[in-house]
């Protein structure tokens, strides 16, 4: 393949990958954040201690985490078809990607929120703050740097998953690499897609790290 042949494939692939990752990240955060917080709140000694809810959510999350993504991808085909109308294409892929990443992100959220100093929670309780207030004004703002770091990790995992999704009818760089690089034995094309993926992951990590550093430095600067 010449560069002029490769170029549209690569740019289309990149756009599709970014599209899938962006939207599935969004859905993952929307779904995983409350789940992670729920795990902390309902845990023993938590503000909304509830063993049943905690165990059920915990088990569901663990099942979600222990399934290999490729299996999940296939198992979810009927569900994806029901939600999106098809199981092929970048839009359809958002469903399995998000469902695969939500349990993962929920655990990251759980760890981040658990690390918030309990004294702060007590302080707000002593002011008469309700549980939603505590979540909004203490847990989330205080855990923000760790949460952002968790989002970064999740985005990178999703980039990896999205490449896998290429094997089952998704689009994106992964699918292009499989179709052109692997099935047509075009090593050069394969190499370029790999480099592109590495570049994307590196940039994401960089942005994440900078954001975390900026957030963590809040209040510690001597201005």
């Amino acid at each position, binding site marked *: 393949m010449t560069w002029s042949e490769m170029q549209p494939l690569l740019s289309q692939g990149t756009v599709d990958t970014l599209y899938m990752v962006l939207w599935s990240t969004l859905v993952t955060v929307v779904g995983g954040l409350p789940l992670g917080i729920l795990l902390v709140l309902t845990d023993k000694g938590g503000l909304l201690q509830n063993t049943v809810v905690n165990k059920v959510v915990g088990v569901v999350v663990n099942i979600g985490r222990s399934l290999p993504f490729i299996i999940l991808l296939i198992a979810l085909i009927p569900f994806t078809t029901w939600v999106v109308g098809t199981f092929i294409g970048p839009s359809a892929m958002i469903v399995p990607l998000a469902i695969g990443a939500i349990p993962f992100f929920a655990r990251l959220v759980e760890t981040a929120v658990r690390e918030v100093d309990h*004294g702060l929670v*007590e302080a707000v309780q*002593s002011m*008469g703050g309700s549980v939603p207030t505590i979540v909004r004004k203490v847990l989330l703002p205080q855990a923000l740097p760790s949460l952002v770091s968790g989002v970064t990790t999740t985005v990178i995992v999703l980039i990896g998953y999205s490449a896998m999704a290429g094997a089952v009818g998704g689009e994106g760089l992964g699918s292009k690499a499989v179709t052109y690089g692997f099935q047509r034995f075009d090593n050069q094309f394969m190499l370029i897609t790999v480099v592109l993926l590495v570049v994307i992951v590196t940039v994401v990590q960089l942005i994440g790290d900078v954001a975390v550093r900026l957030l963590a430095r*809040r*209040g510690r600067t001597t201005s």
Partner: protein
Amino acid sequence: MPRARRTPRRALDSDGNPVITTSGLTKVYQSRGREVTALDGVDLHVREGEVYGVIGQSGAGKSSLIRCVNLLERPTSGTVTVDGQDLTALAGRGRRAGKELRRARSRIGMVFQHFNLLDSRTVRDNVELPLEILGISGQARTRKALELLDLVGLADKAKSYPGQLSGGQKQRVGIARALAGDPKVLLSDEATSALDPETTRSILQLLRDLNQELGLTVLLITHEMDVVKTVCDSAALMKKGRVVESGTVGALLATPGSELAHELFPVGGTASGPGATVVDVTFHGETAARPVISQLSRTYNIDISILGAAMDTVGGKQIGRMRIELPGRFEENVVPIGFLREQGLQAEIVDGGPATAEIPAQTPAAITEEVAK
């Protein structure tokens, strides 16, 4: 100190409006199948406008006690009444604090040993937090927060972050924040324990000022006797989940055998030999200013040696204790001791003769020693 003797619980002062009352407060924790009793029937009466110190060693239950007052900790049994409101009745059954309990809490300020400020918020925003919870809108909130910061002497730090402040400054922010809901009562959970002595003094001074200027009732717990000495009107001593002594500092000092009095004003020294009487004399109020000892010496023509003494100002009043030695056995000193008591002083016989009904024994151990001789 005597160990075997059970110190009776005392309620020495009952005038004044009680603003915090706990009765029969009990807290039992379940820890690995075992039951640990942190509070064992605590009755506390904090009167309006006073600074009340609860002192005890770690594990005595004082932290559980203060956390039960605003129900951060649910008591196992007993009641807590703050400003006429029975908080235990508001608590409900679940772990979640209902609306009414939360509203009641917002009228009780609390400061913490480790300040518990949100490091992601500026000083001003930290003080605004309770106001946000109270639903006060933007401008009024900011105005109030700045007022409070001014009150604690940190007006210039409004835009700083807690991470940029010293420990003492952080605690001032904590105090400003605790005052945001215009509380009648301030709970202080070891507020000065993480601070150096000088900063401790300045924070205690601030609490004292607020107590006097705003009529704020302060309930503080501490393990430092100095805190009680510097700032408290009343004190309670906790041991193993029980209040073993309580009352105004003056009344405690006037109580024979009071452990708190002894801790507050430790006087040491033993008799120079047999045939001498050792007496602990407690001065408070105006008696502290009178030359009683030299009067005693002149009137009865006896030589008095001072074995130990401690003098201080407690709650603005001069208070002190002195351990003196009078020549001769107790029987020979009945009249001089009577003279001391006539002067309005507290005189306790430490060493010198068998305890009689009207002269309570201060230290049985010392007396046993004497008898053995």
